[in-house]
């Protein structure tokens, strides 16, 4: 597993300043949950960490390697950090098995049979080995999201980013996805999890980060931040969502 470190992240879209100097240090095997109101820059922060969004300024390190460096091997560094999206973004023209096996074959040059074996094992891990031959559209949202997690894991990432991965799911499907994430956390994966699931943040998170207006307002032990927030803005946010 690896560490992720961001320093002085600033991101502007035109005049809209979305991140206003964010420092984030994620230790090896740490699970950091990011909470905050809509539009506070949570997704943008996450997307800056694997350079899907290029920060206006600031630096991001994956382990000892700076992904924001001018000559950084961005594709190679992205491989080390898996990402799961709110809208799943599975490849609809490929089977579930191919969704998981495609990147290892295309990017890592893993031999096809080996990639398929491994993909089946990963699908088993998220409880979907029997759906391998189907197309994603045949699966429920919760199942699709578990495939998306398996797809990211197939690259054997050293860290994972989750962006509100249960927000598009029916309540009864949320549990399975959170269960998969919990077992990942227990396996020692470094994780940054943007979430509205306060229960998950409290039980699984090692640290909770509260963002508002493009800055980190408050962070600390989940129980402390969620139950005894210090900042006024955190209190107001939590009183609305809890």
């Amino acid at each position, binding site marked *: 597993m690896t560490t992720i470190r961001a320093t002085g992240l600033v991101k502007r879209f035109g005049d809209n300043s979305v991140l206003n100097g964010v420092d984030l240090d994620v230790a090896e095997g740490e699970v950091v949950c990011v909470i905050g109101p809509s539009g506070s820059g949570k997704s943008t922060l996450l997307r800056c960490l694997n350079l*899907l969004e290029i920060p206006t300024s600031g630096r991001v390190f994956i382990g000892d390697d700076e992904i924001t460096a001018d000559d950084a091997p*961005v*594709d190679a560094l*992205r*491989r080390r*950090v898996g*990402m799961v999206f709110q809208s799943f*973004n599975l490849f609809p023209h490929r089977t579930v098995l191919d969704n998981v096996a*495609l990147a290892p074959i295309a990017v890592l040059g893993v031999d096809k049979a080996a990639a398929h074996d491994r993909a089946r094992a990963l699908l088993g891990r998220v409880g979907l080995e029997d759906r391998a031959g189907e197309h994603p559209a045949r699966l429920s949202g919760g199942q699709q999201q578990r495939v998306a997690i398996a797809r990211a894991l197939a690259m054997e990432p050293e860290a994972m980013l989750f962006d509100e991965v249960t927000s598009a799911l029916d309540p009864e499907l949320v549990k399975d996805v959170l269960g998969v994430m919990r077992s990942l956390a227990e396996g020692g994966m470094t994780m940054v999890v943007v979430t509205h699931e306060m229960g998950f943040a409290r039980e699984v998170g090692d640290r909770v980060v509260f963002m508002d207006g493009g800055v980190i307002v408050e962070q600390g032990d989940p129980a402390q931040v969620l139950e005894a927030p210090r900042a006024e803005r955190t209190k107001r946010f939590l009183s609305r969502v809890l």
Partner: protein
Amino acid sequence: MDEVIRQYFDWDAARPYLPDLARGFWVTIQIAILAEILCLVLGMLLAVSRQAGRGARSRAGRIGGALLRGFSVAYINFFRAVPALLVLLLMAGSFPFLPIPIVSDLTTFQIAFLGLGFVYAAYIAEVYRAGIESVDRGQTEAARSLGMGGGQAMRLIVLPQAVRRVLPPLMNDFIALTKDVALVSVLAVPDVVSVARDAQSITFNSSTLVVAALFYLAFTLPLIWLLDRVIAREKRRAGRGDIVTP
């Protein structure tokens, strides 16, 4: 009345020309297929160039991308704006006199399919582009987050979905292209239309032109039927949600 019918449907006037007309239609089909292959490939290159270097971080990547984009936009707009007939006349009229080895050696047949292929590549590029842009940005982001390069994401993830969605307009353009092969008759290429017209100018009877039309119908009507089937299938698929991810 007989006179009218005979002008169009005089079997005896057309019969002697049937072998020539059949050979002519074979020329038409060859030109259509060669031009189609050319415009599918060239159109794809243009469409992909048009997206080049958008996310590039390095200076070289940005400049290279801008040049590629500029070239493909210029190409596409030029060929969409200028009549195909004019392009064909320009190429056939000038190429034999150019001091460029391969170009001056081109036969009119080759110029015919090259010209049509160049023109249709512009339309095909626009069709592909619509397809590429219709694919959700999340698809590329998912591919890139897995470590794929921009080219890989385009080839493995975006293009397969894009091409599938634009199959109907691609087929439509193939039908239009096949009909536009008639334009090459002005270059003295012995396509079916030029054979029919030459015969008509000897016999003063239009039955050979009617036969040419029948040849066209026999070829394009099945394509039109197939196109309608493809469209209907896509509709059913979209209705079932097979293509779009929720």
